[in-house]
């Protein structure tokens, strides 16, 4: 027998970001203490706060732990091949410039296998927002070292410690010409949220590096403590330096200071504006603006 429903059903208070999450796909697959979910929370709040049209917002991810972000967002989301989120996003954006296109992926995906695509998209100044989650290793495959792993840190494929120099990502993006460059840690969620809003409003290529060391593999293997201890570390050892010279912000040591902040915010015509303006100038009346851009 079914019990009589006697409780009056008050509308359940809804988290403002709930409509942006595919709740039917929860629980997510990230480990306890992982910061990817925190960054995703910041992203969804930025989407809500900025008031951008959610039906015109697409998120493209590559492969890896962060690559799964696309699958949890209730937006038009694309989970493509390893390292290739940026060129997919480039095609998507050029096919419909009215879309806001965000690339959300990890350091191994975007900077190792996808490094070539990332630098070229920054050079072209394609209007994309790239959120790069830097966890200092390859998480999904088991903690191998990567192009962002600090010197001497251990990884599954660096059993005696890493002896390769890591990339200084903000500096790299700076010299490639990105219009907007920032770095935050997952401790700095408010700043990160504001930064994502700013980045999405740019007409050119915007890049945000989010520092969130992998708790299960990187922190554990390097005996750096658990996720809570890491949060305290990020709080105490990050220094906000907006407008810092990007060449000075490298993260090369396991336990060094982390410079964070908005490093670059400049006006430079985006790819679509350049293409349109140049062809209009050169071809005049013969130029036919792509009709699918107008819709």
């Amino acid at each position, binding site marked *: 027998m079914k019990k009589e429903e006697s409780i009056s059903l008050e509308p359940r208070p809804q988290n403002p970001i709930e409509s942006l999450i*595919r709740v039917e*796909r929860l629980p997510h697959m990230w480990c306890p203490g992982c910061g990817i979910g925190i960054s995703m929370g910041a992203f969804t709040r930025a989407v809500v706060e900025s008031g951008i049209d959610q*039906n*015109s917002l*697409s998120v*493209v991810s590559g492969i890896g732990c962060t690559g799964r972000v*696309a*699958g949890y967002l*209730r*937006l*038009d*989301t*694309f*989970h*493509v*091949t390893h390292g*290739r989120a*940026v*060129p*997919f*996003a*480039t*095609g*998507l*954006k*050029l*096919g*419909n410039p*009215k*879309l806001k296109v965000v690339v959300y992926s990890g350091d191994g995906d975007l900077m190792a296998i996808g490094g*070539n*695509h990332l630098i*070229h998209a920054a050079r072209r100044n394609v209007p994309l927002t790239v959120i790069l989650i830097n966890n200092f290793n390859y998480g999904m495959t088991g903690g191998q070292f990567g192009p962002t792993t600090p010197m001497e840190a251990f990884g599954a494929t660096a059993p005696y410690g890493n002896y390769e120099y890591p990339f200084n990502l903000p500096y790299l993006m700076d010299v490639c010409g990105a219009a907007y460059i920032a770095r935050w840690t997952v401790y700095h969620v408010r700043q990160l949220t504001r930064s994502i809003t700013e980045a999405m409003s740019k007409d050119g290529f915007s890049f945000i590096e989010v520092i969130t060391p992998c708790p299960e593999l990187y922190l554990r293997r390097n005996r750096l403590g658990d996720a809570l201890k890491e949060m305290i570390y990020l709080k105490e050892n990050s220094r906000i330096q907006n407008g810092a010279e990007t060449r000075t912000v490298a993260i090369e040591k396991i336990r060094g200071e982390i410079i964070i902040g908005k490093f670059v915010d400049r006006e430079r015509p985006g790819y679509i504006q350049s*293409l349109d303006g140049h*062809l209009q100038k050169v*071809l005049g009346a*013969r*130029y*036919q*603006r*792509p*009709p*699918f851009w107008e819709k």
Partner: protein
Amino acid sequence: MKKTKPKPKIKELVHLTADPRGVLTGVHFMNGDQAACEGALAAGCRFVAGYPITPSTEIVERFASRIPTVGGIFIQMEDEIASSIAIQGAAWAGLKSMTVSSGPGFSLMMEHVGLAAMLETPCVFIDVQRAGPSTGLPTLPGQADMMQVRWGAHGDYEIIALVPNSPQECFDLTIQAFNLSEEFRVPTFVMMDECVGHMAERVVIPPADKIKIFNRRYTTLPPEEYLPYRTGKDLVPWFVKAGTGRRFHITGLTHDERGYPMMNAETQGKLVRRLVDKIRANAEQIVRYEEEDCEGAEVVVISYGITSRVASRAVEMARKQGIKVGRFRPVVVWPFPEKRIRQLAGMVGGFVVAELNYGQISLEVERLVAGKVPEKAIEKRRVNQPGAATAKSD
């Protein structure tokens, strides 16, 4: 019993003739590469991403020059990997798109042939084949990518591949490739070769209203009812493009009808079975071939692309000597015209497969005629050396 479901009004969704803006109606003298570019424009292709490579680069050069006055985009990417996925981003924005390459670049694209098969992205690849492996002979023809196009990416999937043997066919079959790609939501390939790409002949481009076009079938279901990979009997899901409020997810992982990843053998079986069956079950509708005097022939010469032009002369010479020779040319090579080759096997004395490789399509023919034709009667040696396109007595 026949079940009758209300049929969607395809005519309302699918324009049946070409957009005149892309059609260069008239009689031209142009090479195969240029004709393929005109075919793409006529088919409604408005996005090409490419990377320079000989001998296919004339296609993108022409597209780069033509497209700003037609209304579309050419972007030169950083490599062929990027090109082959940028076109898929554009496809999911709602465009017909294409990339173009030759052997070494085509090898790099295999990753995204698999992705296009998995996401069911309609898009066209042109491979102007040169002799390989590796850098090989950049300026001389080959036909040795015929199995690569069939099997190049990992996993099980099906594709469609067409092989033109003249500049006119480069135009016609590129349009056909777009139509098939849209109809079946499958990556479709135009497998040219350097000779066909670089030879110039008369190319007739008809008026736009005489060019049949199959446009993409977009879902008309409201967001709450639409599932990106739900299909009807034809096994082809209807498309959705980004920015229409459907809030869909697509992934290269094994996925269910919702497009959500699902890591189990059952979903894998259901999905990949459909990806394969949507082509295999429709193979008879897709295959296209030309044949001449095959039934009752002492020998049938099977050839495609430039080799079919060369073989014609050999066939004429043999006929002058009184040998009954038939000619067979697959125009669509994948799916292969299996049914017809099996039929012919019982009616002819033997087969000669002429191709610019060391045996690729000949393997397919051997497989189909095994037991019906004495083994000795299948000529499987190469007829021409890859890199050369002149008839040899061999």
